[in-house]
C-alpha cells in the first residue's frame, strides 16, 4: 500500500510537469533546470576547490580543513532541519489537504504516517541534497575514493537529515496535542526564521574572523595553523551531535581508518533507524487521534473560555471599533491585528530590516568613525544619517505596501462588497504601511543618531523626511500592488502577494523614488552651503519640495490605482 501511495505521489509530481496549467508547468520546469544548474555549478566549483586544497596545501592541513568544514556543514543542516522541520512536519502530517481522504481510506494509519514521514523527509532535505551532495560527490571523485564511498555517502546523508526530521515529527506530534496545528506551525516557523538569522550572523562572524586572521596565518607554520584551526573550531561538544558522526563516517573512510568509519557509520544509521522506529511506534498511539482532535482543540479551549468571555465582555467596550478606530479606520486596525497574529509575515517584514541594519553596521563599523572626518559640502556622517535609514526602511516598506492589496488573499471579496470608495480603501492601506514603516524608521534612525551624532536639527529633519519618504514609498508600493496583486489561497502568510513583474516594477520605482527624494534634499543642502543659507531656510525648502513630490505621486498614482481597484474582478 505504501508503494501505491508513493507511486501516486510520483504520478502527481509527473503530472505537474505535463498536465498542469501552463504557468505552473513552466515554473516547475524552470525550477528543475535551475536546480540542476546549481547542482552542476556546486559540483564543478567544489571539485576545483578540493583539487586546489589537496594539490596546493599540505595534506594534513587540507584534511583538517575538510574534516572541520564537513562537521560544520552537517551541523548547520542538522540544526536547521530541527527548527524548520517541525513546521514542515506539522504542515505535512496535520494540515495537508489529502489527509482527510487518506485517513478515510482502508489504509493503516501507520502506512499513512510513514508515507507522510517520507514526504516530510524529502521536503526537509531536497534543498540540502542540491547543495551538499555535489560537494560530497566531488570530494569522492577528486580524492579517488573507493566505490563504497558513494553508497555510504547517500546512507549518511539520509541518516543525517532523517534524525532531525524524526525529532521534528516527534515534537510536532507533541505540540499538536497542546495547540492548534496552524498556530503551532506559525510559531515554529517564526523560531525557524530567527534561527536562520542566527546562522547568517554566525557566517558573518566567521567571515570577519577569517578576515582578521588571514594576515597572522601567513606568518604561521603549517603545524601551528593546524593546531590553531583545531583549537578554534574542533569543539568537544561537536562529538555529541549525530551530524558529526555522519561527517566522521565520510572523513574516516577517506583516511582509510575503517574501524572509526564502521563505528561512526553504525552510530549514525542506528540512531536514525531508532528514531524512525520510535516515530512509527508513537504515531500509532497519537498520530490519528492528534489529527482528529486538532480541529477540536478550539472546542476544548472554547469551553474553557466561556466564563472568561462573560467577564471580559462587560468591560470590553471601547477596546475595539471606537473613537479613532471606527468606520474605515477599522481597516487599519484589522490589518494590524492580522499582521501581529501572523508570525511568518512579521518575520518577512522585520527580518530584512534587522539584517540590513546589522549588515550596515557590520560593513561600515570600522569606517563610521573615520567618516566623521570626510567632508563634502556636509560631513559624510550627516548624509549617511539622513539617507541610509530611508534606504533600509524603503526596502521594508516596499515589502509591506506592495502586498497591501494582495495580502487580503481570498478575503478580498469582503473589500469588494464593502460600501467604501476604492480611493478610501487605498488611503487606509497607505496609512497602514506608512505607520508601520515610520515606526521601524524611528527605531533605525534613533540607533543611527547615537552612532553618527549629527545634532538635533538634523534629527528633526531626518524624522520629517522619514515620514514623507514612508508616505511616498507607501503610495508607490500600494499602487503597484493594486495593479499586480496575487491572491493566494491562504491569506497574508506568504509575502509574495504581488506578481513577479509587479515586484520588479516596484523595486525599480523604489530606486527611482529614493534617487529623486535624496537628490532633492542633497541638492538643496548643497545649494544652502553654496549660498550660505541657514538651516531655517534650507530645511523648510527641502520639506516643502518633498511634500510637493509626494502630493504629485498621491494624486497621480492613487487615482490610477483607484480605477484598477474598481476594475479588479473576483473570480475565485
Amino acid at each position, binding site marked *: 500500500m505504501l508503494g501505491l501511495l508513493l507511486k501516486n505521489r510520483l504520478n502527481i509530481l509527473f503530472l505537474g510537469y505535463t498536465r498542469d496549467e501552463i504557468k505552473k508547468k513552466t515554473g516547475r520546469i524552470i525550477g528543475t533546470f535551475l536546480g540542476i544548474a546549481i547542482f552542476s555549478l556546486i559540483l564543478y566549483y567544489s571539485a576545483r576547490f578540493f583539487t586546489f586544497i589537496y594539490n596546493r596545501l599540505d595534506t594534513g592541513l587540507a584534511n583538517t580543513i575538510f574534516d572541520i568544514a564537513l562537521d560544520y556543514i552537517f551541523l548547520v543542516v542538522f540544526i536547521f532541519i530541527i527548527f524548520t522541520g517541525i513546521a514542515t512536519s506539522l504542515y505535512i502530517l496535520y494540515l495537508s489537504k489529502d489527509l482527510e481522504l487518506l485517513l478515510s481510506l482502508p489504509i493503516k494509519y501507520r502506512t499513512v504516517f510513514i508515507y507522510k514521514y517520507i514526504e516530510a523527509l524529502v521536503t526537509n532535505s531536497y534543498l540540502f541534497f542540491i547543495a551538499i551532495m555535489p560537494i560530497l560527490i566531488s570530494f569522492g571523485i577528486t580524492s579517488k575514493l573507493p566505490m563504497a564511498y558513494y553508497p555510504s555517502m547517500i546512507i549518511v546523508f539520509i541518516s543525517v537529515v532523517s534524525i532531525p526530521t524524526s525529532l521534528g515529527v516527534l515534537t510536532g506530534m507533541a505540540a499538536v496535542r497542546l495547540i*492548534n496545528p496552524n498556530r503551532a506551525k506559525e510559531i515554529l516557523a517564526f523560531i525557524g526564521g530567527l534561527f536562520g538569522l542566527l546562522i547568517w550572523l554566525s557566517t558573518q562572524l566567521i567571515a570577519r574572523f577569517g578576515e582578521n586572521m588571514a594576515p597572522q596565518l601567513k606568518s604561521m607554520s603549517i603545524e601551528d595553523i593546524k593546531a590553531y584551526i583545531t583549537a578554534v573550531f574542533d569543539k568537544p561538544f561537536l562529538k555529541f551531535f549525530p551530524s558529526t558522526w555522519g561527517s566522521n563516517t565520510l572523513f574516516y573512510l577517506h583516511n582509510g581508518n575503517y574501524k572509526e568509519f564502521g563505528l561512526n557509520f553504525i552510530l549514525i544509521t542506528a540512531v536514525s533507524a531508532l528514531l524512525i522506529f520510535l516515530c512509527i511506534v508513537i504515531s500509532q498511539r497519537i498520530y490519528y487521534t492528534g489529527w482528529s482532535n486538532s480541529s477540536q482543540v*478550539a472546542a476544548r*479551549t*472554547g469551553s474553557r473560555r466561556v466564563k472568561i468571555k462573560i467577564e471580559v465582555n462587560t468591560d470590553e467596550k471601547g477596546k475595539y*471599533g471606537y473613537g479613532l478606530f471606527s468606520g474605515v479606520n*477599522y481597516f487599519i486596525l484589522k490589518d494590524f491585528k492580522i499582521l501581529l497574529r501572523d508570525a511568518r509575515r512579521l518575520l518577512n517584514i522585520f527580518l530584512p530590516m534587522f539584517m540590513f541594519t546589522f549588515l550596515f553596521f557590520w560593513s561600515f563599523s570600522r569606517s563610521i568613525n573615520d567618516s566623521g572626518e570626510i567632508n563634502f559640502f556636509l560631513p559624510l556622517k550627516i548624509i549617511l544619517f539622513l539617507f541610509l535609514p530611508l534606504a533600509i526602511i524603503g526596502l521594508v516598506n516596499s515589502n509591506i505596501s506592495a502586498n497591501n492589496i494582495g495580502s487580503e488573499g481570498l*478575503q478580498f471579496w*469582503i473589500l469588494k462588497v464593502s*460600501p467604501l470608495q476604492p480611493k478610501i480603501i487605498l488611503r487606509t492601506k497607505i496609512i497602514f504601511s506608512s505607520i508601520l514603516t515610520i515606526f521601524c524608521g524611528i527605531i533605525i534612525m534613533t540607533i543611527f543618531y547615537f552612532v553618527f551624532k549629527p545634532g538635533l536639527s538634523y534629527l528633526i529633519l531626518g524624522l520629517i523626511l522619514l515620514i514623507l519618504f514612508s508616505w511616498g514609498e507607501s503610495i508607490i508600493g500600494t499602487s503597484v500592488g493594486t495593479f499586480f496583486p496575487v491572491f493566494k489561497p491562504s491569506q497574508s502568510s506568504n509575502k509574495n502577494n504581488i506578481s513577479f513583474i509587479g515586484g520588479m516594477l516596484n523595486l525599480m520605482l523604489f530606486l527611482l523614488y529614493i534617487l529623486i527624494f535624496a537628490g532633492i534634499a542633497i541638492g538643496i543642502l548643497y545649494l544652502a552651503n553654496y549660498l550660505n543659507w541657514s538651516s531655517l531656510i534650507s530645511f523648510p525648502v527641502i520639506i516643502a519640495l518633498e511634500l510637493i513630490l509626494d502630493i504629485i505621486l498621491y494624486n497621480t498614482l492613487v487615482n490610477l490605482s483607484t480605477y484598477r481597484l474598481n476594475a479588479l474582478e473576483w473570480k475565485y
Partner: protein
Amino acid sequence: MSDNSIAIETFSLTKKYGSLAAVNNLNLKIKSGEIFGFLGPNGAGKTTTIKLMTGLLKPTAGTVKITGNDIQEDPLGAKKNFGLIPEEPLIYEKLTGIEFLRFMGNIFTVDRKEIEEKIKELLKVFDLTGRGDELIQSYSHGMKQKMAIAGALIHSPKVLFFDEPTVGLDPRSARVIKDIMKFRARSGVCIFMSTHILEIAERICDRVGIINKGELIAVGNMDELRKVSKEKEGNLEEIFLQLTGEEEDIDIIKSLT
C-alpha cells in the same frame, strides 16, 4: 407594482469568457420581501450571476440594480443595501469572531451600540456565544459559515445574497438560516438564494428561477413552473430535471442500480 418595491433588477445581464457565455441576457425583477431561489446544474452560471449582481465581476453587457442603485454606476449606494454570503466562508481567519463582526459593522457604518447588541444577538442565534473571542482560524467549516452569515446580517441589509447557504451547516444551523430568511423576508428583505437543494427551494421560495448553460430557462412560482415544464403534478425536482434536460440521466442511473 411600484418601482420602489423592486429590490433586484437585471437588464440583459451578460458575462462572457471568450466565446463562452457564463451568463447570457439575464432579465430578472425581484421584489422586496420576496425569497427568490436560483437553481441550475453545476456550472450553469448561478455563482457568476451572484458575483455580477454584487459587483465582484464586471458584466460584459447589461446592468444590475440593487434597490434602484446601479452596481456599476453607483456601487456604494448598491453595496450599502446588500449582504453577501458566499459559498465558501472566506473570512479573515486571523481575527476573532467578535472582531470580524465589529469590522463588518464598522465598514457598513452601523451605530457602535447597535453593533454590540447585534453581535450578542447573532452569536446567540448561531450558537457561537463563548466562541466569539477565538480566532476564526480555529473554527470548524460550519462555524466559519455561520460567522460569514452573521457578518452579512450585521447591517440589516435590504437584500441578502446567499450562495448555497446550507452547505456545511448542521441541521440546526440550516434550520436557523431558513427561519432567518423567512423572518427577514417578512420584514421586507429581498432574499436571493442559489441552491442545489431543491427541497429547500420548494419549501421556502416564493419564486424560483432556473438557469442552464447561462440562460434563464424558466422563472415563476411552482404553478407557473409546472405550466412551463408541462409537469402538471410534478414537484420541483421533476420540473427541474425536465427543464434542464436531465431526465435521460435518470434512465442511466436506473440502469446502474
